[in-house]
């Protein structure tokens, strides 16, 4: 898994590429929490190229969500592909996270 970050307007876009499996979740946690601890609390996770996610990485996204919203920020999800969409629906995490078809619409909602 690789993570690429960029800033657009006042949001941090985090592109998660590859498999967010249990072995990658610690790296994902470190990256997301470092961003939030650094003061950026408006996060958009770009899932366009995320081909797998396990429950550990879901837990990381939730932890980031709780920390960001606790500081009046947010974690939005953008463009999950079919398998990830199914996981979000199965777990009902699509009720917790705002999910958008692409980064642009996530940015527009921010």
């Amino acid at each position, binding site marked *: 898994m690789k993570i690429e970050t960029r800033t657009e307007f006042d949001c941090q876009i985090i592109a998660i590429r590859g498999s967010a*499996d*249990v*072995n990658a979740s610690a790296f994902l946690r470190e990256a997301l929490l470092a961003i939030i601890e650094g003061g950026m609390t408006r996060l958009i996770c770009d899932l366009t190229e995320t081909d*797998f996610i*396990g*429950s*550990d990485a*879901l*837990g*990381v996204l*939730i*932890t980031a*969500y*709780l920390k960001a919203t606790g500081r009046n920020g947010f974690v939005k999800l953008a463009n999950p592909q079919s*398998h990830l969409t199914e*996981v979000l629906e*199965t*777990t*009902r*995490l699509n*009720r*917790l996270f705002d999910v958008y078809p692409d980064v642009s619409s996530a940015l527009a909602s921010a």
Partner: protein
Amino acid sequence: MTSNPPKTDDMGAWTERVFPTSLAEIRGTERDVLTRLRELAYDEDHLFAVRLSLEEALVNAMRHGNHFDPNRSVRVWYRISPDRVEIRVADEGTGFDPGGVPDPTADENLDKPCGRGIMLMRCYMDKVEFSPRGNEVFMVKHR
């Protein structure tokens, strides 16, 4: 480890892997299983479902069963035919009651970072059974 190897029947022999409790060991087993699935031309939906369920079972065995004790082992058996996948995962823990796990999809649990593994296994596999002691899980996915 007290678990006995599963019996061989019409599905043929089981492949067995035993490894210490280390998350780094998971990828090798996943890779072997997914390679066999691809050889038999299983589609991407099946590959995703089996990978997810296998990972959840192995993580549960290491975290909740063996409490990440590197001196304890995880044992996996799997066999894959053109018709179905069968996987058995056993740990050296004291077991648990799967019925006692809170529903992670309940509104009050949606923001809990943990507790989704068993639910995902049940959703993505056709059959998920725990041993009476709760330290072994058997999963089946049909084509």
